[in-house]
């Protein structure tokens, strides 16, 4: 399949709700996982005999295990509150990218097989048999949802399309129709320890060369330790931080913070990945076994604390799910939150005056902050609700002089996904990713024009990779995006006080 033409929509002065363009994204599909990838995760290699009954059976099992799914499939009244809230709808105008219509792709099957009204009067209530066409629609449109939960903010019943999408992906996996990108990555974590398949020796090599660069830059022995037993803190970062730009600049930021604060820390080869694509495919078992590597590493290395780097969905899994999946953490120091976000750690050090900055080192930047969806709507930092918004901003204000907010409807809990989350950060979906970035690009353009913003900070590896790729399609410089700890790295003072 040739890569589809990638077209960036024109940026408008003000956000406009598009007119429906039925079928406009019908050809955007992910590559299907091959037999080897599928079987590595215990899923069937190809579409199974009798897939229809098996899919309905799996849906029945999920309905017994997930209250969210059951309540959300029943509760929707088609009020339309969510219909103009999805970035993929705003960028494409395809009606099946309205959250309610996306949910209905699964809901109509649920109604047909699990409700009296759908069994007796399918036409009346919009119930439909699970046909090959419906399955194709699932593969197309559940792979146009980044599970960002923006719709769930606006739904009067809190219906979270991410829960529906995850269920649909789990069903598709169970009948042999997995998504290549996500499933391939999960297999790499199991085999090597991280999403990128970066083996231990390569990791060691990378960290050592960063140490050498830092020695040259700062004149100090800033360390990036690997597998160091007895370190106080295990730091789990998205593996992109090890070599991708701009990600690596944030890794340098973490290293400098630990160095300046005098806290011993280590990275682990076994848990060299904060990301957890088990979330994206809605598979509890996968999510748990991926997360278990972190527990094993923490026990093996004898650390007292676990800190998570700049990665959005990883922080959701760590903050919201780790205690459930791999807890309890009674072997760690109870005086620190488990797990702790790197921003929480840096913020505490700033509050205590334990690290110092020269803000003028960031004077070449006018900074704005892009809230990452999973951090904003599925996690917290600090003790107060909304700390996930305040703490990163407080860090930016502490390390840079010029900070500007984007349109209030595009930040905090109303933030737009970058367009690449949920396991969609793959080349065959690039057209979708570019279009899905439209709402964020419009908000960014507005502050670029009004305030000369030239740096968009964010705390998510997927956001960084996605924006680096799509910014040029909107005539922005790709290096405009970077991490919060990239700014920290620029400004932090490492010399004696």
């Amino acid at each position: 399949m040739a890569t589809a033409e990638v077209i960036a929509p024109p940026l408008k002065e003000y956000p406009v709700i598009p007119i429906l363009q039925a079928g406009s994204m019908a050809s955007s599909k992910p590559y299907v996982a091959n037999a080897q990838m599928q079987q590595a995760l215990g899923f069937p290699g190809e579409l199974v005999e009798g897939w229809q009954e098996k899919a309905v059976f799996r849906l029945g099992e999920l309905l017994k295990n997930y209250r969210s799914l059951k309540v959300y499939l029943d509760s929707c009244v088609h009020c339309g509150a969510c219909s103009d809230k999805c970035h993929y709808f705003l960028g494409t105008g395809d009606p099946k990218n309205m959250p309610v219509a996306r949910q209905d792709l699964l809901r109509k099957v649920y109604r047909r097989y699990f409700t009296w009204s759908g069994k007796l009067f399918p036409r009346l209530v919009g119930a439909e048999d699970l046909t090959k066409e419906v399955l194709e629609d699932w593969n197309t449109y559940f792979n146009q949802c980044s599970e960002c939960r923006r719709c769930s903010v606006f739904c009067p019943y809190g219906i979270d399309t991410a829960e529906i999408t995850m269920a649909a992906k789990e069903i598709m996996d169970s009948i042999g129709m997995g998504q290549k990108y996500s499933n391939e990555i999960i297999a790499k974590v199991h085999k090597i320890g991280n999403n990128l398949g970066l083996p231990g020796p390569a990791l060691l090599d990378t960290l050592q060369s960063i140490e050498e660069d830092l020695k040259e830059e700062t004149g100090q022995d800033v360390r990036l330790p690997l597998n160091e037993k007895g370190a106080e803190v295990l730091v789990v970062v998205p593996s992109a931080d090890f070599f991708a730009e701009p990600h690596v600049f944030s890794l340098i930021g973490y290293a400098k913070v630990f160095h300046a604060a005098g806290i011993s820390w280590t990275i682990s080869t076994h848990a060299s990945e904060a990301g957890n694509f088990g979330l994206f495919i809605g598979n509890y078992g996968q999510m748990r076994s991926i997360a278990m590597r972190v527990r094993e590493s923490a026990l093996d290395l004898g650390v007292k604390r676990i800190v998570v780097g700049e990665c959005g969905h990883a922080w959701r899994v760590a903050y919201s799910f780790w205690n459930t999946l791999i807890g309890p953490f009674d072997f760690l120091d109870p005086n620190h939150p488990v797990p702790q976000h790197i921003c929480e750690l840096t913020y505490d050090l700033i509050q205590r005056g334990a690290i110092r900055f020269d803000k003028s080192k960031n004077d070449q930047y006018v900074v704005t902050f892009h809230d990452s969806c999973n951090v904003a709507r599925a996690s917290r930092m600090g003790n107060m609700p909304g700390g996930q918004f305040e703490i990163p901003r407080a860090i930016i204000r502490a390390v840079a002089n010029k900070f500007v907010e984007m349109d209030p409807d595009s930040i905090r809990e109303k933030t737009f996904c970058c367009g690449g989350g949920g396991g969609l950060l793959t080349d065959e979906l690039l057209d979708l990713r570019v279009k899905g970035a439209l709402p964020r690009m419009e908000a960014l353009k507005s502050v670029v024009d009004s305030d000369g913003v030239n740096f968009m900070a964010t705390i998510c590896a997927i956001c960084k990779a996605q924006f680096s790729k799509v910014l040029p399609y909107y005539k922005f410089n790709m290096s405009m995006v970077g991490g919060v700890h990239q700014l920290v790295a620029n400004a932090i003072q490492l010399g004696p006080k």
Partner: protein
Amino acid sequence: MTAATIIFALVFYAATALCVGGLAWRIADYARTPAPLKIPTTPAPTTTGGVVLRMFREVALFESLFKSSLWTWLFGWMFHVALALVIARHLRYFTEPVWFWVTWIQPFGLYAGFALVAGLGGLWARRFLVDRVRYISTPSDHLMLVLLIAIGISGLAMKFLSHTDIVAVKAFFLGLMVFDWQPLPSHPGLYVHLALVALLIAIFPYSKLLHAPGIFFSPTRNQADNPREVRHLSAWAAALEKVKP
């Protein structure tokens, strides 16, 4: 005892049984189904008290809908508040002596009848005028609004156009509740009104009206944001821990 009396008595017993039985089954099902993971839409309250407050704002004020769409909120909230007032007003047909606050509420309930129909009209108009809402509307979405509007108009008609013997109607319902059947007045408007109400009651647990109990079981709204402080573990997730990987 007219045939109509017997038919309506049986219809209301059946509708009530379907509604109560269906709701009990549905609510028990929701309550039994585990929520294995903490998924509150954040920022979320960190305490149970905070969750109760959030749920109250959601149920009484439609907070999320307000954030989403002012028009839908306006019509939707107007309809639901009006419906609550109208139902409260109708309590006088089911209580003897009539509770004092039900007496006090009567004039408000009367105006609420118009607000109810107006709100429903606004909601229905959106299903034709907004292309996105038109796309997602199923026949049952339209029919549900038609049903509610017809109930509202037939009720208003009995108040303002063609009165029925309301004292007899009250006697009929008081009698129904103690299985002592009293004659229902013969009045076409009343028959229409009661038949539609019985239909609404009967389909409540088998339709999208399930959003009413559903909101209370919605994990994104009813969970406290405290996963680091309290370990949340459902039964089937706990069972996984016993299996060695």
